[in-house]
């Protein structure tokens, strides 16, 4: 073995992580990072349907400040994100625990997980249609038809509580995300830890709290953060379910951005709204990072 070989070895050692990251980074940089820079630039233009980059300074942001609906949209955004996130993470965790820890019989757990996957795997339009059909305020709404059977007048169900509707509908879908990730993580916990805990007298609650939760801290953080960002930026189901209405009662910031960019083709303005969204999102991410201690979760390599 000559010296040069060591050199190559050494180089190879340091380049391996980058090699393994390369496809990931290339994709991200090209299709994610660059576009984001474009968006950031775009936020200072009044690009419209003609797709021209004409800069207009901070006009877009001024306009946002003046928009009389802005306070309500922001309020909606926070309500929607907070409650849906709570359902997504907490209920997702409950589902994960129930289907992969409490229910030891794998087939039963799988059955329930499959059922909970249904909302997520159905085409969004159809899922939303199911909601609409069930809770339609007309006498033909399915729940109303049932009420009619026992001579009750049509109820208004969710139509008078659009925010509840979007939170529940999104929660049902988001919960399965947490459920799948958490149950996978729970399955990866070595069995002997549970055995040790049982022998140590741990109650079910304690096993959850002291064994499972610490073991799935990373997925928990990830799901919380990812879902937070997803919720902040997603609008699809709201668009289909209420379209932000009635009026702006269920309009959230991302939907607003969509409406601006793709309904009225104000791309510049839409980008500006997105940019605001990002700033909000980053603020929250920073908090979550602190709370979960992301730094601690980045272990060091033990092969040197």
């Amino acid at each position: 073995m000559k010296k040069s070989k060591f050199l190559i070895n050494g180089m190879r050692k340091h380049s391996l992580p980058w090699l393994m990251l390369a496809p990931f980074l290339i994709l991200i940089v090209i299709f994610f990072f660059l576009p984001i820079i474009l968006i950031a630039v775009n936020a200072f233009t009044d690009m419209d349907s003609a797709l021209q980059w004409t800069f207009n300074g901070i006009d877009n942001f001024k306009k946002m400040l003046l928009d009389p609906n802005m306070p309500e949209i922001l309020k909606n955004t926070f309500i929607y994100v907070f409650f849906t996130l709570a359902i997504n993470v907490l209920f997702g965790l409950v589902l994960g625990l129930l289907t992969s820890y409490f229910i030891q019989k794998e087939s039963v757990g799988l059955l329930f997980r499959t059922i909970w996957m249904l909302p997520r795997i159905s085409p969004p339009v159809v899922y939303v249609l199911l909601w609409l059909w069930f809770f339609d305020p007309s006498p033909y709404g399915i729940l109303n038809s049932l009420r009619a059977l026992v001579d009750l007048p049509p109820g208004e169900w969710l139509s008078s509580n659009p925010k509840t509707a979007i939170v529940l509908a999104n929660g049902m879908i988001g919960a399965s995300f947490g459920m799948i990730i958490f149950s996978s993580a729970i399955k990866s916990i070595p069995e002997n830890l549970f055995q040790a805990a049982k022998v140590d007298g741990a109650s079910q609650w304690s096993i959850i709290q002291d064994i499972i939760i610490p073991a799935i801290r990373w997925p928990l953080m990830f799901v919380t953060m990812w879902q937070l960002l997803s919720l902040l930026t997603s609008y699809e189901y709201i668009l289909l379910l209420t379209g932000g209405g009635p009026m702006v009662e269920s309009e959230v910031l991302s939907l607003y951005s969509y409406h601006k960019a793709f309904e009225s083709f104000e791309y510049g303005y839409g980008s500006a709204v997105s940019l605001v969204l990002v700033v909000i999102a980053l603020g929250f991410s920073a908090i979550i990072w602190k709370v979960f201690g992301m730094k601690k979760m980045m272990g060091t390599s033990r092969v040197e």
Partner: protein
Amino acid sequence: MKIELKNICKTFNKQSNTINNLDMTINDGEFVALVGPSGCGKSTTMLMIAGIYKPTSGNLYFDGQLVNDLEPKDRNIGMVFQSYALYPHMTVLDNIAFPLKQQKVPKEERYERAKNAADMVHLGHLLDRKPSQLSGGQQQRVALARAIVKKPKVLLLDEPMSNLDARLKIEMREEISRIQKELGITAIMVTHDQEEAMTTADRVAIMKEGELIQYSSPMELYNRPKNYFVAQFIGNPPMNFLKSQLAVKDGKCQFYINDTTVDLNNHLPKIKSHNSIKDIYAGIRPYDLKLGQKGDITLDGVVSLVEPTGHSKMVNVKVGDDRIRFFADPLQKIERGSKITLTASISSIHLFDCESGENLTAETIGEGQDNKLVINS
């Protein structure tokens, strides 16, 4: 707590029983050592007592109470797992304090007691480490501290000191003994260290392929092995065996070793027929063999290997087709290939049926060993 296992069977794959009809009683406050070849079902037995595994059939009683369905957490057990099973996300201190937390011991007291336990296993300086930052022996000590910190009723120790150095092992062993005696804990320990088993346990249970072979006091085990398996298993280095034949003629017994005919004057009640010839193993413990010719029987052999062990030399000798070992004084000069003569007293010889493995030695011979010499002293 008195623990009774009644006809316990356990099977993993539905084909063969891993544990086969195990019947065993551990008295309240007793310290039992569980020994047996690797894979014989010791850990499985422990896990059943802990309640982790449910017996496939049979019953388990704690103080006369059927506990087959009792949850592990309600059994008040402390256990060292063979694989330690430390909680990777907790620090050493939290690992040790965990059982106390489950008993709702107030935080301060909990950490106080956990620290004491950690000190006991000499880990006081590593309280903030995570298990992955510990050496193997340190991990095992954490497991040990965790098992005893809650002062359980039953202590299950599955090779709790296998990765500790000799000194520490002795120290820990004594500590465990002390606590066990002080608190009246019923303890079961799996160990491969026979000295450990012999010195610590009130009784030793020997298992083989899921069955209990012998369950008695250490001395009895050593002096009166029930059968060939126990004889060859217990004792380090193991007993030497010489293939031989036992002839019974008109109630008189003889057997032949290495050209010597040995008359057994004491009766052999275990042989029914009065005229027969049987293949047997004659067993002699290495420590009972001496250089020279002064004993009841003598063996001539060729030295095949000399291993130093510190306080003495272990010498391997070829006697006929059999290989036997004995200990020689370290200062005696014994060389490979040289011819030597060994001797032993007849009272130190155990006879085993080649087929059934049963110990054929008359009770009196076994007892004689004790009696005769006690009188001598």
